[in-house]
């Protein structure tokens, strides 16, 4: 099938540099950009040139489950732009990745449900480039599938599915869409393995446009879905008696070889093994004919910056995505380096998801938690990775804020503090988090740990917390003075741990 190069041609004709500076960069809002809300910097995609400590904290908060002390050092050494470029390189098949799989999955041919969860949670906790997991979680939410659909002899398919998202997260969107269209987990999840020429299943065709590439009712009709479903026919599952495992393969006899009329274009039917090529044709047709770039630009910008971005922003990012032939890294880099990303509108906050909350806590403190705690904590809070509620992913944003989930978050922190371990299983010494070790004062402890968690304390808050460290509650309920002594192990175990517990209930700690 011929794919139109119309969009690429348009973009190629435009100077990329002009495109971006035309977006309100350089301090002066361009024509038509003033109404975007939040001031000109909120809509400017021009690269920011100087970065405050707050900017750096903001960047780390949004891109790696929150700042860890080592991250701050890395940014200082590399500078923000290079730090961003570096983290966008997502390694595949690292020794660590393999080791974690070996540690967490007993039989890689028949992984268990909880093993697949814990494999990823370990990577979230320990990947030296946590952005790889942050971004994979974004894609997992966008292309939401659940391992729940995979029975025992199919569970291993999930490893390939997740790695597709983990390794390809900053790669090429066209490639990712094409791979996902024939990914075994996706084919099982959206009924692709049951879609035949006799009975094309519309499930994948509909979600491909509605959720994955365009948005609901955005430029396609039910008639298009019916026709597109005919392209997506032919794959089936087969159980292999020898291996005892199921696999997915293309069966030309189940593929609809007729011509299809989709989005006003004709897709010529393909025959034989070539029929599988229609999955790629559909991806190419959709990218060529419809505003996929705008849709994805909006999603990425919303994830990193703030919701409901103005059209100027998404249009410029979409043009960049097309100009780079759907390479994602340039778009993500542009967002993360932009004035808009560091604007007050962006810093006004996004609600932390349970995963961002939980992983942020362990990464900031340097804890190595039991996977039991992390798994059950996220399950209780309603965000067990690999198991979103449905194809639409997790309902996010302010929907994460409920009384119940706040209790669950506090209990997760409690579990971490009570069960804390280190890589050597000797226990995280909370004293090492204090600036002056055993000679730290209560005020120094409060400031250091609030800074570590990036919690904004008012003067009143600070007094409350310093008083907490300098007092003791007795069994009869009275609270008596008991000056904090960082050399006293009991003070570290009870009070510093308690201070982290209280800080994790600060409202600003639930916002990133």
């Amino acid at each position: 099938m011929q794919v139109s190069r119309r969009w690429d041609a348009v973009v190629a004709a435009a100077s990329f540099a002009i495109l971006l500076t035309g977006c309100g960069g350089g301090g002066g809002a361009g024509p038509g950009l003033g109404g975007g809300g939040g001031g000109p910097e909120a809509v400017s995609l021009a690269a920011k040139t100087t970065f405050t400590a707050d900017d750096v904290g903001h960047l780390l908060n949004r891109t790696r489950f929150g700042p860890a002390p080592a991250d701050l050092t890395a940014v200082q050494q590399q500078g923000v732009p290079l730090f961003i470029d570096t983290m966008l390189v997502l390694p595949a098949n690292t020794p660590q990745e393999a080791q974690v799989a070996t540690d967490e999955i007993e039989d890689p041919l028949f992984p268990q449900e909880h093993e697949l969860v814990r494999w990823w949670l370990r990577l979230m906790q320990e990947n030296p480039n946590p952005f790889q997991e942050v971004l994979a979680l974004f894609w997992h939410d966008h292309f939401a599938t659940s391992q729940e659909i995979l029975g025992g002899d199919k569970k291993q398919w999930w490893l390939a599915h997740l790695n597709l998202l983990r390794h390809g997260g900053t790669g090429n969107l066209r490639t990712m869409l094409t791979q996902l269209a024939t990914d075994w987990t996706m084919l099982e999840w959206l009924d692709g393995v049951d879609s035949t020429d006799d009975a094309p299943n519309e499930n994948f065709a509909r979600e491909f446009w509605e959720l994955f590439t365009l948005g609901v009712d955005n430029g396609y009709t039910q008639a298009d879905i019916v026709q597109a479903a005919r392209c997506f026919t032919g794959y089936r599952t087969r159980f292999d008696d020898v291996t005892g495992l199921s696999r997915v393969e293309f069966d030309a006899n189940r593929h609809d070889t007729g011509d299809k009329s989709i989005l006003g274009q004709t897709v010529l039917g393909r025959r034989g093994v070539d029929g599988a090529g229609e999955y790629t044709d559909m991806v190419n047709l959709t990218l060529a004919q419809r505003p996929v770039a705008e849709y994805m630009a909006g999603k990425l910008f919303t994830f990193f910056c703030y919701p409901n971005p103005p059209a100027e922003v998404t249009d410029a990012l979409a043009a960049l995505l097309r100009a780079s032939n759907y390479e994602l890294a340039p778009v993500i880099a542009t967002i993360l380096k932009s004035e808009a990303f560091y604007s007050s509108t962006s810093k006004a906050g996004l609600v932390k998801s349970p995963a961002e909350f939980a992983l942020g806590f362990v990464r900031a403190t340097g804890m190595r938690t039991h996977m039991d705690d992390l798994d059950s904590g996220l399950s209780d809070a309603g965000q067990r990775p690999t198991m979103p509620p449905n194809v639409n992913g997790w309902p996010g944003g302010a929907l994460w804020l409920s009384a119940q989930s706040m209790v669950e978050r506090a209990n997760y922190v409690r579990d971490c503090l009570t069960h804390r371990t280190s890589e050597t299983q000797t226990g995280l010494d909370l004293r090492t988090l204090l600036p002056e070790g055993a000679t730290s004062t209560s005020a120094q402890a409060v400031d250091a740990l609030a800074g570590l968690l990036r919690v904004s304390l008012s003067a009143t808050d600070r007094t409350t917390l310093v008083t907490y460290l300098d007092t003791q509650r007795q069994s009869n309920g009275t609270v008596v003075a008991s000056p904090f002594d960082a050399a006293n192990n009991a003070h570290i175990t009870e009070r510093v741990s308690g201070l982290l517990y209280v800080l994790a209930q600060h409202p600003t700690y639930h916002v990133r």
Partner: protein
Amino acid sequence: MCNDYCNGRRFGKSATRRDVLKTTLAAAGFAALGPLTGRLGTASGAVSAQTTFTIINMFGGNDGLSTVVPRGLASYHSLRPTIAIPPGMELSLAGGPAGTTAYGLNPKMPKTQALWDAGDAAIVNLVGYPDPNLSHFESEDIWSFGMRNGSGSLTTAASGWIARYADRYAPTSLGAMSVGIGRRRDFVGGSTNPLLLGRLSEFQFQRDGQFANNHLHRLEAARQMLSTQPTTGLSGEARAALDSAHQLVDQVQAAIASYSSTVVYPSNSLARSMQDIARLVQAGFPTRIFYTGFGGFDTHSEQNAVDGTTGLLTGGHADLMQRLDDAVGAYADDAKAMGSWDRTVIAVISEFGRRNFENGSLGTDHGHGACVLLMGGAVNGGSYGPPMTDAMLQEDQLEHLVDFRDIYREILADHLGAGSLSAVFPEAQQISTTLGLV
């Protein structure tokens, strides 16, 4: 498969279907939209004076024909040569103000029989919804959403029926509650943010075992810190959620501490949930709808048999009936003791019934219509719905002649006193019946 039902989780392939998708933007019944303060609800401390509606869901598809036995129909015995409840073993429903000889109860349900005799139990046969779906997930979703025609009408519904009820008639976190089974789709959507609990005892800020005083101390510090936080912006919303968390934990733990009862509940999961509900009612929680359930009803094999030695009914389904009977019996005793029984309606439901004929594994496969049981002092005891006939049994499946939403509708209106229910059950029904259940 059973585990999915037992723990009340709702994931899976069905979740990818069209009718589910539309709901998810507003999904998560545990969500907070807007300020929580003032929408929490407060326990009165005295036994609730309000009427309550408790739903017990038998996850997996209950075999209605083994629950309420059509004792006089020849086909019942011929189609189920090995698993039918033997003639004479079923418990008689001939007693009480609305006695009937057409049906009998599962022999494991003597306490339910006693409620029947007192006019406090009802059976509704042939309950379901149009165009039945044999998938557990799809069928459960239809019951949860209170909607049959997903893709068309769910755009406006986009929520579970309890969420829609709570928004209109019980708009606090305590207005409707799930107990013992966690999250359910009945509660998703809407803006009321109902409390969805596991065990009551677990809904608390877990203490640090070794440092009890310090745990209380740090909680006090957290509360003091929260009390001075701004109430505006996104962190203001986070503060509201945190404030609510502390208040709700206090109320639930106070309910546990103040509960007093001489009733001994059996030790099964449903009984534990029912006792938790009793605790909340006794503590005066302003909750109108409680939702609980238990699993194991997907009885494809070995569901019923008569023990050759004892002559008693055994098998997986028989055990489940006994657990149900024991749990409801204990709750009834407790509610009577605290004086709330006359304000109680319990509905026992399932996502579908099972085939009329037994399969080759001494079990039954997924079916359509089935019975719903009602218990409570506010129930008009008796048998409802069209009479079951031999001809109906000769079909593979029982058809639905009563729409489940009519049962819910009557209880919400006539028992809970709800006004218009057009927004709670907005969909036009093929069959609409006035039953007079309460």
